[in-house]
């Protein structure tokens, strides 16, 4: 079923991260023929999200040192004397210091871990063998025994055991010290014992095999971001109609961290007035200040004198208690104590306030199933307008015409030469030779699975963002995003917590572990005497560093042809503004006279412009249900 790729396109895009995917969609939308490839088996590059087993495969890939280079057809013979090659990288180098720590029981004799086959491909598809796709089709088709009963789904385990895991249970809260034997616990867990007259309901211990078994409930993003409700990405999603491919949740809480406690920060007017933490005086102060921030530019005399000071200094001159200053600085403006000036702070505060209320009482949205859906939505848009998609498709080199200095083709891993007018390449594909003058910053990331929220409340289904100010000199402010199970990113009874900061120390773990320790305790199957434990428990943790390739000047790359554009990977910021801006800039270079992702002239539903049927005139009649009612966007129905 795999056809051969056409040998000519208008635009070739390499990498399926957010900016590349937006460019692909925009070009395709404007009538360009687009080939969009990724050498990985999943969409999104460093913007991807994985289910649990997919994430384990990803981890394994980066923990493996060896370069298991497949045999690629030689490209050298395929270029002419008048041409030269820009060779691309074979193995990705953007992720380092990957560390996994499992805090929950990992019994190897757990029945579930024996169950299934290894899922080789984390996210996507029936990836064909690189050399002969048909081969793969045949072999696995003959295998009908694969059709699983719900209980032995082929997604668990063998791989689970191969991942390098630091086991901390022994030296921290060993199970050995627990009075109940593992066997007894197993029984208690799996078999409801009638005679068990224990007064309190038995706590349900979470085990590693449970996480693995429910692995598909997880959607774990490599990059943790939110969408500002009036940010560029939301605007683009709406304008282009790509929004129909995704659903969102409003972030429900803005949290602050002060003196070792996690507190909810009131930010909307209603929040401020309902807050029990603030005194009447504080409420008035805060409202007055926030109201000023909304149109600070109208009152330059209020801040002119402090333009050169830090925002934190400026806040001290305002009528605000230390409490309030802290919240404004860290949780609302989310700027740094030392490095951002008054104007940055005011602008960020205003941006925050302006985004409030559009979809809910915080300024942020989070996509169901995770941020990793965003690139995929744009890819779908591109495909809908005829773009061609190929994952597992590596590109060996770009071919440059020596005389004109322009790029004219790529040579893929099959040795196929595919020509195009424009080339968009994600930074991580570039070789050391191209990037020898580039210095990259690093992002430190942690992904935690926990058993409780960092701030307990009436509901267990909150989505929260917390900024933890630097915990010691020389460390960075850490952004914490806690996702509940209704975001479709983790299994019931757990939370998925993302930590992000600019890397200052050697590894992500060094950058983030202190904050993790302040917010969580290692999981222990011990019933606490005095009831509720104050901090939620850590079940599983992953640390890694990711290269930040944003903000790199085009001239820093060596010998870029003028028709080649380099997209950055994810940056450290909360929003997606950089990716959208970059995509738009490149698009406008490529097609200066075209609008960027214009709205669809007709809803894309109407394509069958056949003679007989005029879908537009079919008006839904409420009483005859068996009518075509779907000629419009679901959104538009709301307005009828």
């Amino acid at each position, binding site marked *: 079923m*795999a*056809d051969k790729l056409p040998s000519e396109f208008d635009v070739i895009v390499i990498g399926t991260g957010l900016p590349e995917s937006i460019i692909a969609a925009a070009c395709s939308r404007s009538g360009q023929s687009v080939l969009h490839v990724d050498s990985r088996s999943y969409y999104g590059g460093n913007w991807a999200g994985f289910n649990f087993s997919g994430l384990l495969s990803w981890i394994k890939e980066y923990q493996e040192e060896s370069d298991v280079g497949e045999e690629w057809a030689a490209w050298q013979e395929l270029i002419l004397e008048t041409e030269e090659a820009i060779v691309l990288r074979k193995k990705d180098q953007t992720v380092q210091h990957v560390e996994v720590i499992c805090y929950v029981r990992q019994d190897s004799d757990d029945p579930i871990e024996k169950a299934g086959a290894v899922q080789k491909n984390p996210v996507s598809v029936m990836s064909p063998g690189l050399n002969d796709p048909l081969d793969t089709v045949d072999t696995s088709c003959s295998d009908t025994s694969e059709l699983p009963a719900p209980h032995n789904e082929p997604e668990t385990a063998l791989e689970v055991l191969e991942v390098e895991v630091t086991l901390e249970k022994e030296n921290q809260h060993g199970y050995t010290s627990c009075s109940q034997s593992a066997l007894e616990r197993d029984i208690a867990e799996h078999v409801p014992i009638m005679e068990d007259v224990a007064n309190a309901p038995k706590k349900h211990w979470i085990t590693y095999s449970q996480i693995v078994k429910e692995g598909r409930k997880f959607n774990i993003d490599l990059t943790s971001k939110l969408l500002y409700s009036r940010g560029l990405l939301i605007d683009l999603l709406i304008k282009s109609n790509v929004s129909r491919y995704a659903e969102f949740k409003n972030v429900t809480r803005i949290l602050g961290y002060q003196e070792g406690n996690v507190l909810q920060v009131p930010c909307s007017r209603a929040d401020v007035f309902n807050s029990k933490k603030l005194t009447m005086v504080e409420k008035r102060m805060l409202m007055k200040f926030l109201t000023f921030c909304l149109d600070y530019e109208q009152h330059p005399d209020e801040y002119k004198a402090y333009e050169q000071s830090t925002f934190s200094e400026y806040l001290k001159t305002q009528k605000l208690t230390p409490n309030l200053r802290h919240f404004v600085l860290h949780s609302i403006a989310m700027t740094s104590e030392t490095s951002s000036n008054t104007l940055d702070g005011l602008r960020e505060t205003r941006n925050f306030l302006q985004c409030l209320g559009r979809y*809910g009482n915080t300024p942020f949205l989070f996509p169901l199933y995770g941020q990793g859906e965003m690139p995929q939505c744009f890819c779908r848009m591109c495909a*809908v307008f005829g773009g061609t998609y190929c994952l597992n498709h590596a590109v060996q080199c770009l071919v440059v015409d020596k005389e004109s200095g322009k790029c004219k083709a790529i040579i893929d891993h099959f040795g196929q030469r595919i020509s195009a007018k424009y080339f968009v390449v994600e930074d991580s594909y570039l070789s050391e030779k191209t990037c020898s003058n580039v210095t990259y910053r690093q992002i430190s990331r942690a992904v935690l699975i926990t058993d409780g929220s960092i701030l307990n409340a009436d509901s267990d289904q909150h989505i929260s963002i917390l900024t933890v100010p630097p915990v010691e000199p020389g460390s960075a402010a850490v952004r914490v995003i806690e996702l509940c199970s209704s975001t479709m990113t983790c299994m019931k009874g757990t939370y998925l917590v993302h930590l992000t900061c600019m890397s200052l120390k050697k590894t992500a773990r060094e950058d983030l572990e202190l904050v993790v320790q302040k917010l969580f305790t290692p999981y222990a199957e011990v019933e606490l005497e005095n009831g509720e434990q104050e901090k939620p428990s850590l079940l599983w943790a992953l640390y890694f560093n990711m290269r930040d390739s944003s903000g790199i000047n085009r001239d820093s790359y060596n010998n870029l042809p003028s028709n080649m554009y380099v997209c950055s990977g994810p940056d450290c910021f909360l929003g997606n503004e950089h990716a959208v801006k970059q995509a738009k800039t490149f698009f406008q270079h490529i097609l200066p006279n075209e609008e960027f992702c214009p709205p669809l002239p007709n809803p894309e539903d109407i394509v069958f412009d056949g003679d007989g049927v005029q879908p537009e005139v079919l008006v839904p009649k409420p009483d005859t249900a068996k009518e*075509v009612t779907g000629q419009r966007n*679901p*959104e538009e129905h709301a307005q009828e």
Partner: protein
Amino acid sequence: MMAIRELKVCLLGDTGVGKSSIVCRFVQDHFDHNISPTIGASFMTKTVPCGNELHKFLIWDTAGQERFHSLAPMYYRGSAAAVIVYDITKQDSFNTLKKWVKELKEHGPENIVMAIAGNKCDLSDIREVPMKDAKEYAESIGAVVVETSAKCAINIEELFQGISRQIPPLDHHENGNNGTIRLGNQTPQTIRRCC
């Protein structure tokens, strides 16, 4: 007023088996010989009654991403049902059906309703896939199965009725999509799947 339930249905199957034609027939009662391979079409809806509910099918087409085995997982998200199409005149398209089923089991939602459509049954004189094979296979995986012809409007309605019948009745307890937001053009719309 009957309750409307939105049901996302995704289409799967090899290129050229007639996925788009099936949707086009179902939604618009129209067939076009020269239908371009799914450009611009990816999302059609049609509402049909089922018991005391209305089922509003949101039908997603692959947009060609399956051609090089590159369907995005977001394609399956939240699908209530999948229609897996093969061409009864092409044995190959039936063989790959099993791959699509496997793919669905790996990446689709857990309780997805599966319906198999053996399309182009108007061409039964050049049939390669016996009905019996499809029936047996469908039974083994608990899927609905019918032979259809988008061209001659055979069994297309029945296919979707079959899906409707398999959809479990609305569970009022797990109405868990509270607060889910769809971005509209101006007014954000909070989805209510039951009135």
